[in-house]
């Protein structure tokens, strides 16, 4: 019986089924903690554990889901293109913010990892943690990191950032919406952007721009790591 879970349809359908449930629960609770993807992952892990299905069998179908990562990343370009006028108008602060953001993230992570005696593969997994998951997972792979650890770090960063950014703006008296928008996007990617949109329109737009651009700058920094 267990052999049948090697059918690609098993893994793929399980992904879709649990993700739909995740979205349904998220729509009912409307909380950032009820993230559809986390709910879906918990359902899948539970199903695999209860029926004692090997992870490898699930992955045969799940790999087809992961294949859509590249086109989804490419599609991010459309949102960047729609904001092109805003980018042109504020190009200098945007470039400065994204470069400083990416550099400060990478440097602070590498230094802190060294300080805490983290092994090489953990450091490599954490370096891309401030950028969008799409780019972070590929970058982690490239640097020799463990992709699931990177995903967890990206998620923790995003949740912490989304909760704390309104307080950080007040605490450090960031009275400029361009500055707070870029800071949110650079430090806590798309999850932060969802909060930035709530704070204001300029904040949301600039945060979205910073997510894409910081990811790009980080990839270029990584070439020299």
């Amino acid at each position: 019986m267990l052999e049948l879970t090697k059918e690609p349809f098993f893994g793929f359908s399980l992904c879709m089924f649990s993700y739909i449930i995740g979205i349904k629960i998220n729509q009912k609770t409307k909380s950032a903690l009820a993230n559809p993807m986390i709910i879906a992952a918990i359902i899948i892990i539970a199903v695999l554990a209860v029926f004692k299905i090997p992870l490898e069998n699930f992955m045969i179908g799940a790999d087809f889901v992961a294949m859509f990562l590249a086109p989804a990343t490419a599609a991010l370009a459309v949102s960047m293109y729609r904001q092109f006028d805003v980018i042109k108008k504020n190009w200098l602060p945007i470039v400065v913010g994204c470069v400083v953001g990416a550099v400060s993230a990478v440097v602070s992570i590498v230094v802190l990892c060294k300080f805490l005696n983290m092994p090489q593969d953990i450091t490599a997994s954490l370096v891309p943690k401030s950028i969008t998951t799409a780019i972070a997972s590929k970058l982690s792979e490239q640097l020799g990191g463990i992709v699931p650890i990177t995903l967890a770090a990206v998620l923790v960063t995003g949740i912490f950032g989304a909760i704390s950014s309104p307080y950080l703006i007040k605490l450090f008296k960031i009275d400029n919406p361009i500055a707070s928008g870029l800071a949110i996007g650079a430090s806590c990617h798309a999850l932060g952007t969802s909060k930035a949109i709530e704070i204001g329109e300029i904040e949301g737009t600039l945060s979205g721009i910073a997510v894409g651009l910081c990811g790009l700058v980080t990839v270029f920094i990584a070439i020299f790591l």
Partner: protein
Amino acid sequence: MKLFKKTLILFVVCFISDIIAYFLPFPFPGSVLAMIITFLLLLSGLVKVRQIEPVSDFLVKNMAFVFLPSTVSIVSYLDVFQSILWQFLLICIVTTFITFVCTAYSVKLTVYLINKRKEKTENA
């Protein structure tokens, strides 16, 4: 048929990006290259937003779905997590904080300098 074409455009861009990434002298993620190429195609007008629009929006909106398999495989790394849990959380929180402050102040300074320069040229 239309959805077919829109999906095809994105897939072909991804395939070409992977080929280019393979021949680059340094490691570079093909998916990021696909993002750059798509942006350039839109900017040059060779591809119009409407030619890929509903598919691209669907993919961006449901980006999290794509990460479901890797998130599930966290279960194979539970022992790694247990051994570094507090360092992991500390690094995530402290570096997010540092990145936020550095970015916010550098942009604040840049905007301030731009405005000052503008005032100077207006007064002159």
